[in-house]
């Protein structure tokens, strides 16, 4: 049985960044690595094993899906692209909302204590 949003939440940093990297367009594995590196300002750098472990888990959870396309550079060897599913996007939105609420609460509290 697929898990509910509540069971997935909070997302790990790895999962969060991978989902976030896939919001604009579908990407292959190496592009995900590079985008995550950029999004986290070089703080999060995956090894290949960590990336594919996370991708396989997200595929199983139905949060991303894989599309295969013929690679024009290498005939007969399809290239895989990963893309967000609808539930993946909703999951990411829910997580972002949760983080924003936390951030807002923290900012408010810190502002009060600083005043």
């Amino acid at each position, binding site marked *: 049985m697929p898990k509910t949003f509540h069971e997935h939440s909070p997302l790990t940093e790895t999962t969060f960044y991978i989902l976030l990297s896939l919001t604009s367009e579908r990407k292959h*594995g*190496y592009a995900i690595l590079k985008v995550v590196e950029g999004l986290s300002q070089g703080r999060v750098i995956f090894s290949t094993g*960590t*990336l*594919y*472990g996370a991708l*396989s888990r997200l595929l199983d959870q139905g949060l991303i899906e894989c599309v295969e396309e013929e690679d024009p550079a290498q005939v007969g060897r399809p290239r895989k692209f990963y893309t967000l599913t609808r539930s993946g996007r909703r999951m990411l939105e829910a997580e972002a909302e949760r983080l924003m609420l936390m951030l807002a609460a923290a900012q408010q509290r810190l502002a009060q204590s600083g005043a």
Partner: protein
Amino acid sequence: MQKLLVRFYAWLLYRLPAGFRDEFAGEMEQVFARRILEVELRGRWSLLRQFVLELLALPGLWLLAYQRQRRVLKMTGSIVPELPDRQASWAAAFVAVFPLVGYIGLVLLADPLRHFMPVVGLTALFDFLWVNVIRAEPMPMIFYLLLLAGLLLAWLKGFPCWSFTYLSWLVIFLISGMGIIPVFTSPYLQQIGLTGFKDPFLRRIWIPLILTLLLALLFDHSSKPLRSLWLGLRKDWTLASFALFGILEFMVLSFFDEVPGPQTALVFWQLVVVALLAVGAVGYIRARVKVGRLAALLGSAALSIALSASVTAYHWQNYPKSYGPVIEGSSTLLSGLLFLIVVILFLLAPALLSAAMNRLFTSRPVA
């Protein structure tokens, strides 16, 4: 350099469970190659650092991939042990032979190696190993832990045929720990470092075994591997013979009891006996039919017994008579012959038992 690292990584990826490997390994290799190419430009240390990080991620990935495959197999209901009538790989043969040659081989080779070490300038290192590992308590312990790692892997893989040598050696350690073996045999055990239940390591031998079994249950959440073990034995009774073959090694090598110390010229012959038994195990693993498997076991057992009996008989005939008639050469040869008959019956026992059970359960009175 880059090509070499990529090849090595690809080889490691090939060790991942088949389902995961088919789905991701090709892609992972490409990503790894690009990553390495990119890091190489920053210098050798960056390359090394990245490579180590990549390696460290693999054990976790292996576990995840294994659990994923297990889940898929459970969903499709197709968990089966490695089928005994399928020819096992050379890798499986290599793994199966490890318990037979690893421990005894190292103990036997320790002395010759010690003499060889000054030639290559490694005396200090070898003396350290000699004192701390090879002849002291850690040696049996390290080997026992390797056997337990084999048991864990065997459990996760549903007890394939290579695992039966591990099971038999675990039995040897356990009964040695309970103090049973030294009652009816054998100074040979003491010669190779298993000194009976008075040894504090052997007395606590159950604890790591129980922990390993708990770990296996934690990974697997089921006792299905035990069912696989039972089904495998029912389907191919030669597996039981193979398990007994592991114990046989001790029985054959006990011909060399009382031979003074492992530094004698007989070490060479003991190594030949171990090698013969290892060849038998490989023959068993690689044979496609039951008759071939049994022939490999019986052939190597017969040859190793004949060799052990002949060599030790020759040894004792050249010895002063003060050692008494019990260990004279002729009596050694006679006991070798009797022992051969016992061993053949021992290895054939599972076959005879299986035939008897088939007869018992399949024969019905004609109406």
